[in-house]
């Protein structure tokens, strides 16, 4: 990912050096410095590649000698309605959560940017939900969601009948928790972006008598677009592989109402010990994430170039 700062040429390598260091060694220096990191990468890529390979085996805990079966797992899973349910749940989750968090995050950033007393106090505590482990956020919300004893139905006056984690409501409830955790992420990124904008265009258009909304739409949003996109990319990618708080709240249920792709893979691999099926789920999710990431990053690159142009 490129930075949102204006494009810059990397600092030139230092020219003057003590003569004792020959040129060929200087040229090797960045490689030598990166070797340990590359080794770690290889060490983590190995299980990753192995996981991808599992998708082409008939590997399960009960199978003593796994053999290569080609695309059979893919054929089975792609024709399984349960998989497509997982795809739908994952995308509903990712799209709704990302859109809600982006809109709310931009709104909160705009409100905080006025730097009133309320805003300054609130800015300090805004990030607290973001810093708690998502699984713990899930635990807390689980206690609050309980129809009989939970505090939500009591405070909202819903009685003890409203089931937050019921078949129709569970997906919205887990999205609500996502919004609670991650809206601050969007807000603080966008706020940092707003504060880095040049003041002159706004002053000029204020002199020209432009309305607040006009300035927001025609000036701020276009200039802010790269920052917003960075937030959207991070949120959308993370939502596609969501696991922690959904798992502890619903474990994918009731039925398959919140069975996202990662939870589906967990059930296949770890619960049923069908390593190949779980790996096939993950392989397909990885392809989805990879393709989406490439697309979004290219959009980001275009937006950054456009924003860099509009600033001049």
């Amino acid at each position, binding site marked *: 990912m490129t930075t949102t700062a204006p494009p810059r040429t*990397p600092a030139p390598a230092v020219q003057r050096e*003590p003569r004792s260091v020959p040129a060929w060694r200087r040229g090797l220096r960045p490689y030598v410095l990166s070797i340990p990191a590359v080794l*770690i990468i290889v060490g983590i890529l190995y299980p990753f590649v192995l996981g991808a390979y599992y998708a082409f085996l008939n590997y399960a805990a009960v199978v003593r000698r796994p053999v290569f079966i080609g695309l059979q797992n893919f054929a089975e899973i792609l024709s399984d309605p349960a998989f497509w349910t997982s795809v739908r749940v994952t995308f509903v989750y990712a799209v709704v959560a990302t859109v809600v968090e982006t809109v709310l995050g931009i709104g909160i950033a705009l409100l905080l940017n006025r730097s009133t007393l309320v805003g300054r106090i609130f800015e300090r505590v805004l990030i607290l939900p973001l810093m708690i482990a998502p699984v*713990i956020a899930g635990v807390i919300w689980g206690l609050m969601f309980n129809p009989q004893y939970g505090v939500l139905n009591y405070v909202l006056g819903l009685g003890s009948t409203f089931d937050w984690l019921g078949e129709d409501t569970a997906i919205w409830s887990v999205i609500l928790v996502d919004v609670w955790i991650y809206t601050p992420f969007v807000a603080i*990124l966008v706020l940092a972006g707003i504060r880095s904008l040049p*003041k002159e265009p706004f002053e000029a258009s204020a002199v020209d008598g432009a309305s607040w909304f006009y300035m927001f739409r025609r000036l701020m949003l276009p200039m802010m677009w790269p920052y917003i996109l960075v937030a959207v990319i991070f949120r959308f990618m993370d939502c596609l*592989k969501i696991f922690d708080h959904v798992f502890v709240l619903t474990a994918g249920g009731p039925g398959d109402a919140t069975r996202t792709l990662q939870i589906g893979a967990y059930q296949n691999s770890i619960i049923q010990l069908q390593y190949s099926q779980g790996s096939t789920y993950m392989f397909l999710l990885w392809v989805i994430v990879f393709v989406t990431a490439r697309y979004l990053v290219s959009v980001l690159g275009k937006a950054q170039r456009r924003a860099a142009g509009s600033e001049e």
Partner: protein
Amino acid sequence: MAARELGPGQRRFSPASIGADAALLVWFVFSLFPLVWMVLLALKTNAEQISTYFAFTPTLENFAIVLSSEGERLTSVNFTQAILTSVINCVGAVIVSLVIGIPAAYAAGRWQYRGSNDVMFTILSFRFAPELMVIVPLFVIYNQIGLFDTNVGMIWVLQLVTMPLIVWILRSYFQDMPAELEQAALLDGYTRRRAFAMVALPLVRPGIAAAALLAFIFAWNNYVFPLILTGSQHTPVTVAVTRFLGGGGQAYYNLTAAAALIAALPPLLVALSIQRYLVRGLSFGAVKS
């Protein structure tokens, strides 16, 4: 808006400003209520835990139970041990990531060498990789070579969380540092290594501290790696907390809340101390503030 920022001393009380503050307050309540509720619940006795009243006599008994053998009897996980395990795993992962990540970040921030972008993007792709794709084979491998349910095993796999963060954040700090400073040191007769140690490293020290602490938070908060790769011996806090939810039997709401509070406290305290650096950290250096 940027142009209409209200400086101190020129505060206005317009209807719009009051409306905006009111809107902020609504989010404030929504954002903090679960946390306040967790604290209240943690201070309630067993008899009060299922009541939704806000008025009660607070007790610290729950924390004592969670941290004692009484809590271990209920959950079969020693929570004090879990805290220690979390500290060891996270500190270990951060240290390894720093030792390995700082040179790589320096190389990537200072030089444009063949393959540098590939290395950096591969590291970044860890951030977006579905964890289970790595965990399932690791689960099989760990069971074969005896790394299952060990601190070394966890430290190794937590690199997936801590390494990308540290390398990407520090690269952006090294890029921001003018190369002239090191050149001046070289002209003064410093060796390259000394110029790095005496000039470059001290200048990015705040960045290193912030990146390390943020990586610590991320490692501490991770759930899916230990869920699958640890058993009962080296359970970290995120997994231990969920044990208080009970399975089918009695649920200990107040104990769960107390355990959750203990587990949530270190990240919260660390986050407040590095707030200035969070934006750059959370966006991997893509957004600077």
